[in-house]
């Protein structure tokens, strides 16, 4: 009977030396040849469970069986020898090496035992690439290849080491929707060849699309194993967060007033000579949320860079309350009451080794109210951080914990707490809920709506269609560095229609788009 299972983890409990209980009596079973989803909010214990399966951590108690055989996975090397491969969320690749070199790292073929046989490495890479229909460029440096290809390299790396069971940790988090679709085809392909796949994600639609069964974790405990075909998205989200997540955001009609952000004829040519922004003009008014939708890489990132002083446009103007922000640094832009939730929270949002408190006051640490002469007024700082942690329900032991040790959702709450609490008049929210759990996502979305209704202008950039459509009062779609469409009202929009504009199949007339300038 047990031969049916590729993986059986029984009664797994993991207590970290610092006392954190990451997993408690978890049973996790994966059948051979299935795609099994492991779901849960950030901090639910998914990563810990998978780290134990890949030998990076050892369980405090419980046992692990691979193909019915009890194993003691003391290191990734042991896990690899048992046929387990892992594709980490943060790629385990060496950027300056070629694809082929990364493929054979740790098992380099040699000529006569001493000198590497690079040709053989390339040959091996091509062979596996063809066998599994995962196209990679064997000779290219990893630093030069796109994210989607990096992921294929990771999958091939596991396969070349003899993996029959693949763990994919949030594989779609970094992929565009086309790349995601391609990945899914390949995963199904692998499944058909008898491979077992464990798929970690918290995107409901993806789970529904490709998995056979799923295990849901909540607070370190298993909420049971379910057949994907017999549960609804609503049931899943209830099991994940223990309450019905309102996927719809309730909001009153926007009452926009004065113009806050005014962008006109913005053009930007990047270092490689590619025109990334082409005559982009729009305005955001007090009390409204303007969404920017579009497939990633169509100028959204560059636009945000211009707005927040990270790059200067070749042409055009950006004004906040009638004052130009071009050429100003981030501090000066913040002094104009502009807040920013950056796309990459780990790099631009927080300082990982600093404490929650330090991160919370980092934009306001020079303010007189937090200082006594040249020294900090620690009492005021403690009060402020304690209040923010409470208001934004940051789950932590205390505000002096390192922010990097929190889960993704809680880190984002720290960012948001800082950015939303400094009396902003304009909030630029770039992918504000990417890669975070349902609970934190809902919290941040509600907060954005609440702030906009209190008279703040919000510019929301999101690759999550559901998010831009639900949150935005009006919406522009970017395609190829241009605004392809403007919708004054998002209520009657459909995915289909948006898709056409996002992929460049259709484009509105210039005067229709021009209405977003509200002139």
């Amino acid at each position, binding site marked *: 009977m047990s031969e049916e299972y590729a993986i059986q983890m029984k009664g797994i409990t993991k207590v970290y030396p610092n006392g954190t209980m990451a997993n408690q009596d978890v049973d996790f079973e994966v059948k051979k040849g299935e795609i099994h989803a492991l779901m849960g909010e950030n901090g639910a214990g998914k990563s810990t469970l998978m780290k134990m399966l890949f030998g990076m951590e050892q369980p405090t108690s419980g046992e692990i069986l691979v193909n019915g055989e009890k194993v003691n996975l003391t*290191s*990734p*090397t042991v896990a*690899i020898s048992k046929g387990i491969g*892992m594709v*980490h969320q943060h*790629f*385990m*690749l*060496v*950027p*300056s*090496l070629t694809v082929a*070199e*990364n493929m*054979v*790292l*740790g*098992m*380099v073929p*040699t000529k006569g035992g*001493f*000198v*590497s046989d690079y040709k053989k490495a390339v040959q091996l890479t091509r062979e596996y690439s063809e066998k599994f229909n995962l196209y990679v460029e064997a000779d290219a440096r990893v630093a030069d290849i796109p994210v989607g290809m990096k992921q294929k390299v990771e999958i091939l*790396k596991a396969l070349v*080491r003899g993996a029959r069971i693949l763990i994919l940790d949030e594989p779609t988090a970094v992929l565009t929707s086309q790349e995601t679709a391609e990945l899914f085809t390949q995963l199904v392909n692998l499944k058909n060849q008898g491979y077992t796949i464990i798929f970690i994600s918290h995107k409901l639609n993806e789970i529904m699309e490709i998995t056979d069964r799923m295990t849901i974790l909540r607070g370190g405990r298993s909420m049971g194993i379910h057949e994907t075909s017999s549960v609804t998205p609503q049931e899943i989200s209830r099991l994940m967060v223990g309450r019905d997540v309102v996927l719809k955001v309730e909001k009153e009609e926007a009452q926009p007033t004065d113009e806050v952000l005014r962008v006109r004829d913005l053009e930007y040519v990047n*270092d*490689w*000579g*590619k025109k990334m922004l082409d005559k982009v003009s729009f305005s955001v008014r007090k009390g409204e949320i303007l969404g920017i939708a579009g497939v990633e890489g169509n100028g959204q990132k560059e636009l945000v860079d211009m707005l927040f002083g990270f790059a200067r446009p070749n042409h055009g103007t950006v004004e906040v309350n009638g004052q130009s922000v071009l050429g100003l640094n981030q501090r000066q832009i913040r002094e104009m009451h502009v807040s920013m939730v950056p796309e990459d929270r780990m790099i631009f949002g927080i300082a990982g080794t600093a404490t929650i408190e330090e991160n919370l006051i980092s934009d306001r640490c020079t303010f007189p109210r937090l200082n006594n002469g040249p020294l900090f007024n620690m009492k005021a700082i403690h009060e402020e951080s304690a209040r923010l942690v409470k208001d934004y329900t940051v789950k932590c032991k205390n505000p002096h914990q390192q922010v990097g040790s929190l889960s993704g959702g809680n880190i984002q709450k720290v960012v948001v707490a800082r950015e939303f609490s400094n009396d902003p008049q304009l909030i630029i929210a770039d992918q504000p809920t990417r890669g975070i759990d349902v609970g934190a996502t809902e919290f941040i979305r509600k907060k954005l709506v609440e702030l906009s209704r209190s008279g703040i202008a919000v510019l929301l950039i999101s690759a999550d269609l559901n998010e831009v459509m639900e949150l935005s009062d009006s919406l522009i779609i970017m395609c190829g560095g241009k605004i392809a469409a403007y919708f004054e009202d998002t209520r009657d929009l459909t995915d289909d229609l948006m898709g056409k504009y996002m992929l460049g199949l259709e484009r509105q007339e210039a005067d229709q788009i021009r209405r977003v300038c509200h002139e």
Partner: protein
Amino acid sequence: MNIFTTDFFFSIIRIATPILLATLAAVIGEKGGVSNIGLEGIMMMSALFGSLGAYWTGSWLLGLVIAMVVGLIEALLMGFFAFKLQTDIILVGTAVNMIGSGGTIFLVKTISNTVMGQSLTSTTSLITKAHQIPSISIPYVRDIPVVGKVISGHSLLTYIAFLLVIFTIILLYKTPLGLNIRSVGENPNAAASVGVSVSRIRYITIGIGGVLAGLGGAYMSMYYAMGWSLDMVAGRGFIALAAQSMGGGEPVGSMLAALVFGFAQALGIKVSATGVDSNLVAPIPYIVTIISLVLFALNQRRKERKRFAAAA
């Protein structure tokens, strides 16, 4: 007055040799993610024990081996403190450098007092021509006009140093060990995730560096100068770090950078020999360093531009 004689170019190579050896240690170290700022101290210790070893055994070859072994042991100890006990490697390096200065003079006094009954402050009185690393006059090459005079007649270790540049290239780019060193240096997690033992590779990396720095130290006390004296390495271990970075961390570039520093020091010596005020001569090596760093930076920028242009 002509400064640029064959003698002058000969002296560039002579002066650059210990810098080159330490530079290769720095190159391999940085590739493996091990910033060894203790090269200076290792060179000092190896210089001392190389000369003592040669004196005791009466053999320059055994002296050289002892210098290498001392360099290796010291580097592995650094590794133990840095990797095993998790001390900041910069602190460990600083400690090694302080030991290289104060510890060597303490050791030489103690050892000479115990063994010979007299307290020495240097080993120059012990080392004779017989203990010196031999010079090699290369047949045929020495007869080539001009060039022969510049490249023939150097110490055996000089030729080894230049061969080690090739060895370093092969090691780093043509062997599995080199691939492991580079991957551990760039992304240790990636290396660990495929079963490469990160700590083993780091020990090997720092160990190779220790042996190379040991050779550099031996060159100082057993060829360049006759015997060990206090602070004789005089910053060459640090110059090596600069040469590594100036050479972009690559073996050939770093070798050229080491030669530039050799040139600067040779020029200083040459100019002071002509009777120019020593206060004017003293800054020459530093001025050359600054100029070459500026040229290097300009060149880097030009390359970068070119790359962008090519990509567009």
